[in-house]
């Protein structure tokens, strides 16, 4: 499979994503500069974490108008797999490819820690390697991960199984105590209606090797490869 990792000015998890797909999974991978207005022959596009445009105005607000984003939209419309991690998730929300928005964490702090993340939907091209309800340990590193959408949107997401990941306790309990950032319903990741565009705040690409602390994130890439 060929992966494209989009690089915005201020992306800083682009190398982690590239490393995971290229060296851990032995797949083809290429960086795509955000000024690129034509992208060809990719099977999956990754929008990595970081601080595109210094988070000016709002996270992802300016990156969303980078020339490459029109291509990402076309790619998604054709059914191509798109994954936004952390800042990538924020950009996908700003672009309207995913609903909702990620706002400042409830406690105003930048959170950098391992979080317990429950897999709620295993019928997606990004999660089919997991068991329903499985709890993963994945790192989070963000100041704006507090997922917000209006009540109707949240209901639509919940009713259709589009909340893919949720912050939980180690044994899978969803509670306010296991919510690191104040996200509505502990939401950590959502998928679009068509099921080919996913956004998540936790970083699976940083949990693909034992030497880096665990392999709970491997299933995301494994699922994409078997898509």
């Amino acid at each position: 499979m060929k992966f494209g990792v989009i690089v915005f000015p201020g992306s800083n998890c682009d190398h982690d994503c590239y490393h995971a797909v290229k060296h851990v999974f032995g797949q083809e991978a290429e960086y795509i500069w955000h000024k690129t207005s034509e992208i060809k022959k990719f099977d999956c596009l990754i929008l990595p974490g970081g601080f595109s445009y210094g988070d000016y105005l709002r996270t992802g607000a300016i990156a969303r108008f980078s020339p490459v984003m029109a291509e990402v939209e076309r790619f998604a419309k054709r059914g191509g797999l798109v994954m936004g991690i952390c800042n990538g998730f924020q950009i996908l929300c700003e672009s309207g490819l995913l609903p909702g928005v990620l706002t400042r964490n409830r406690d105003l702090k930048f959170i950098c820690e391992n979080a317990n993340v429950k897999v709620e939907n295993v019928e997606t091209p990004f999660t089919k390697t997991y068991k329903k309800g499985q709890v993963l340990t994945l790192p989070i590193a963000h100041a704006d991960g507090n997922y917000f959408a209006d009540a109707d949107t949240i209901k639509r997401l919940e009713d259709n199984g589009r909340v893919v990941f949720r912050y939980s306790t180690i044994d899978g309990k969803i509670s306010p105590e296991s919510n690191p950032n104040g996200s509505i319903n502990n939401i950590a990741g959502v998928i679009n209606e068509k099921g080919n565009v996913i956004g998540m705040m936790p970083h699976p690409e940083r949990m693909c090797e034992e030497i880096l602390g665990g392999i709970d994130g491997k299933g995301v890439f494994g699922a994409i490869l078997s898509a």
Partner: protein
Amino acid sequence: MKAKVYVTLKKGVLDPQGKAVIGALDTLGFKEVKDLRVGKFVEIELEAPTKDEAKKCVKEMCEKLLANTVMEDFKVEVEG
């Protein structure tokens, strides 16, 4: 012409910054504060044939970029 844009969080959207500022004001003894929301203010110098057209143009800027209408409201004032 000069346009002033006020971007504020919609009702019901959690404003942790506002809550922290309320807490600090309370510590300073300002017990009068009932509620407080932190927003953004943008000043724009622009050229437009009329005030109405300037306002229309700035509103479009707000909808496309300056505000995220999922969580924010905006107000535009044009001077001059």
